[in-house]
């Protein structure tokens, strides 16, 4: 790695941390400014007055706000985010358990959506001017306009309840045990549970790469080097795949970050439709149950996930395009 590239990565990491810090601070303020019992953020209202007082003191809630803030920062950085009311378990643990489920769903969906979307987009560009193209675009737009949870509901109704091909919720059938993560990921039972939420999310996400790829392909096909490739007597398919698609793909990959962003909205509702035990579902349950420590922890991790994935997308793009140098960015 060159010196400039490490410096760039360091810069981006610093930026990441900055944003994360801002988000954490915002969270802190929001939860402290809760109407009602200001202590509700950490105290379960079912405790007795003495117990509450003890807890208040233990959590330092009788300290001035700025001191609380510092404690909060330190605790969060160390990974301790309090105790969940609802589950009576450390927030960190609950959140950590939910994370892999979300990651699998989101990463899987983004990658598959990109592959399918980009391919379909290139295909539609190739079939330019035909009825197939118009139909394809309209379909892609329609799916993108539809609420993702509604699509999920339809899939659930048709494939789970009516046809009984897929299970209706969760990651696993009751009583399932797995020797390791890899075992779990590759087990047919898990995959059957994963299928519908994954398909739902993919359908939601594919619109952007598809339209973008098609648009870029149409632009690239007009470029001089494509015309030259034809003059060189190269077969059309080779031109399409190795030259047109390769060039058209680059800007689509920048949209990778954008798609990641969308997926990080989409999964929240999708997880809830399918009762997929990820961070999205955890957040919603926590907020609904007024379980503030858990909500806080889940939100923080979601934000961190989003920021991190954006960085990864940026790195990926820089690696792909030889014209972009670290210095320029």
């Amino acid at each position, binding site marked *: 790695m060159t010196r400039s590239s490490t410096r760039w990565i360091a810069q981006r990491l610093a930026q990441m941390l900055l944003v994360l810090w*801002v988000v954490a601070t915002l969270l802190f303020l929001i939860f402290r400014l809760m109407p009602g019992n200001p202590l509700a953020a950490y105290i379960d209202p079912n405790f007795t007055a003495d117990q509450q007082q003890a807890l208040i003191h233990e959590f330092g809630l009788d300290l001035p706000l700025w001191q609380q803030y510092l404690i909060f920062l330190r605790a969060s950085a160390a990974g301790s985010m309090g105790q969940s009311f609802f589950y009576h378990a450390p927030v960190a643990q609950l959140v950590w358990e939910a994370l892999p489920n979300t990651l699998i769903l989101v990463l899987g969906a983004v990658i598959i959506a990109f592959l399918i979307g980009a391919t379909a987009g290139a295909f539609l560009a190739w079939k330019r001017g035909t009825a197939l193209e118009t139909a394809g675009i309209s379909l892609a737009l329609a799916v993108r*306009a539809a*609420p993702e949870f*509604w699509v999920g*509901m339809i899939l659930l*109704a048709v494939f789970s309840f009516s046809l009984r091909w897929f299970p209706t919720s969760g990651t696993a059938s009751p009583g399932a045990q797995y020797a390791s993560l890899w075992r779990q990921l590759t087990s047919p039972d898990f995959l059957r549970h994963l299928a519908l939420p994954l398909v739902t999310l993919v359908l939601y996400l594919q619109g952007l790469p598809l339209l973008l790829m098609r648009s870029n392909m149409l632009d690239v096909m007009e470029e001089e080097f494509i015309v030259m490739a034809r003059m060189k007597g190269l077969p059309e398919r080779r031109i399409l795949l190795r030259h047109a698609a390769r060039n058209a793909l680059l800007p689509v990959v920048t949209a990778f970050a954008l798609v990641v962003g969308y997926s990080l*909205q989409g999964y*929240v509702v999708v997880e809830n439709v399918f009762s997929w035990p990820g961070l999205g579902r955890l957040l919603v349950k926590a*907020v609904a149950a007024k379980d503030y420590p858990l909500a806080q922890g889940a939100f923080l991790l979601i*934000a961190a996930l989003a920021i991190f994935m954006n960085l990864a997308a940026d790195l990926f793009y820089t690696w792909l395009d030889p014209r972009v140098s670290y210095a320029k960015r």
Partner: protein
Amino acid sequence: MRSGSVGALPRPGQTWAGWRRAAGTLWGVLQHDRFAFAGIVIYALFVLIALSAPLLTPYDPQQTIISGDQLMANRPPSRAYPLGTTNVGRDIFAQLVYGARPALAVGFVAAFFVALIGTSIGIVAGYYGGWLDAVLMRLADVAFGIPYLPFVIVLVAFLGPSLWNIVLTMALLLWKDTARVVRAQVLTLRERGFVEAARVLGSSPRRLMLVHLAPNVLPIALLYGSLAVGWAILTEASVSFLGFGDPARISWGYMLQDAYISQALSGGAYNWFIPPGVCIMLVVMAGYFISRGYEELLFPRLRRR
């Protein structure tokens, strides 16, 4: 200065000339682009439905219907109940038709504010530059880092589940895209002669921004505004679906949540949960179509088609 040219200085007393010209161009787009026109037609249709809801159905969306001694629950579509009834006996068609009201209200109001805030910030940031620009853009960067839907959920739960809280939250977060693009446009406009000339002639910054810059960024504002309508409706639907919606209003999102928790899926009650989704889809698509028309105006692609 020829008054017909783009960006020419309006003569004294012609403050609105720029706006009038911009309005004319935008209206022209709607007339010429088939898709944009279709979008407007769809909007108009739904506005009509929303306004004439009482005429379209005799029932109130919240009303549980009792006929004779029986609660009309889970009735399939029939002449009396065009889309059937819910599991507590409410008419689905009535809910659908009245549901257009909160949908359009949220959509248009949120879109308006998003466009307004985004455009204003974009113009101010682009025009003044310097530290103001830097601060505003940093703010936008932070806004990018906050996950949208989770934040909306948290804020709505915190502020209380009302329609206007949802609109407020959306306006707080969605302005960044518009602001970025408007700012870029203002930066290019700033270099054009007419802005410099206006400044030399003593136009106050406020006048410059309002009379000269604003009409020129109007197409972009409208483009993102139309997109924002879709985002807003989808956000409201998602928030309602998750159970944080406004319980006093039956919106399409609320209908979907209702259907979901009432086992409509396992019961195969497609008549219940398909129509609201279709309506959402249509309105959002209309927004895409209209924005597509303006995109053509802003970034014309002469080579294709």
